[in-house]
């Protein structure tokens, strides 16, 4: 997700625990493979925000097939949200959190 999204989300909801992968756990997962990041997110009960629908569905399917849970996925539609539309994306992400009542474990919500 765009780095500025973190700031925008915290501006809207300061109670949300949100971090960019570049800074989360001191950037330990900045270069991690997606399956490693998904496992780390699960360990931390943290949902992943992404727009990568090329590979993420496959990674989640592999986790499910292996009998593993995941921390949740918020996927935003690249046709709906352009990279610079940080405000709209932040509002949509908040809407998803409220829609799910913060219960995102093993859920995948596509924002469009």
């Amino acid at each position, binding site marked *: 997700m*765009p*780095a*500025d999204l973190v700031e925008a989300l915290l501006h809207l909801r300061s109670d949300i625990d949100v971090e960019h*992968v*570049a800074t989360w756990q001191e950037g330990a*997962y*900045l*270069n*991690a*493979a*997606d399956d490693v*990041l998904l496992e780390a997110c699960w360990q931390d009960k943290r949902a992943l925000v992404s*727009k*990568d*629908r*090329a*590979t993420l*569905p*496959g*990674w*989640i*399917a*592999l986790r*499910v097939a292996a009998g593993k849970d995941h921390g949740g*996925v918020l*996927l935003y*539609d*690249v*046709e709906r949200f*352009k*990279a*610079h539309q940080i405000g*709209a994306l932040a*509002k*949509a992400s908040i*809407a*998803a959190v409220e*829609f799910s009542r913060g219960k995102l474990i*093993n*859920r*995948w*919500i*596509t*924002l*469009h």
Partner: protein
Amino acid sequence: MLPISLRIPREVKAQLQKIARRFGTNPSTLGADYVTEGVRTTLHPSIEFRQTPAGRMAYVRGVRLAVWLVVETVEDCGGDVERAAKLLRLPQLLLKAALVYAKAFPEEIAADRDAGHRPIEELDALVPNHSFLRV
């Protein structure tokens, strides 16, 4: 495609066969892919290849960012490289290196983009516990 002959240590051959089985391919195809990627990353050292469920994919080295997503971000920003680099928190030169790679291998990046633009309706069939939220 042209054939070449290579000599590799016995244990490397065994590992290649093992990985090929895991990826559902054969050692020759996988070996050719590795050689191709080795040549490309030598010529484009800012690029690395990652194994993904959608196949091998070009990424910007050192960050979790596929080249096709860099291309899209620059397009979203109307070609403004500086703005795109700021959004992605990437050094401009690294971003430009990704664009150079995309220009050199347009068909590969186009295929990756196609995968990234699969109809979102397909997600219902691919992902358990999936829901849409129109916002």
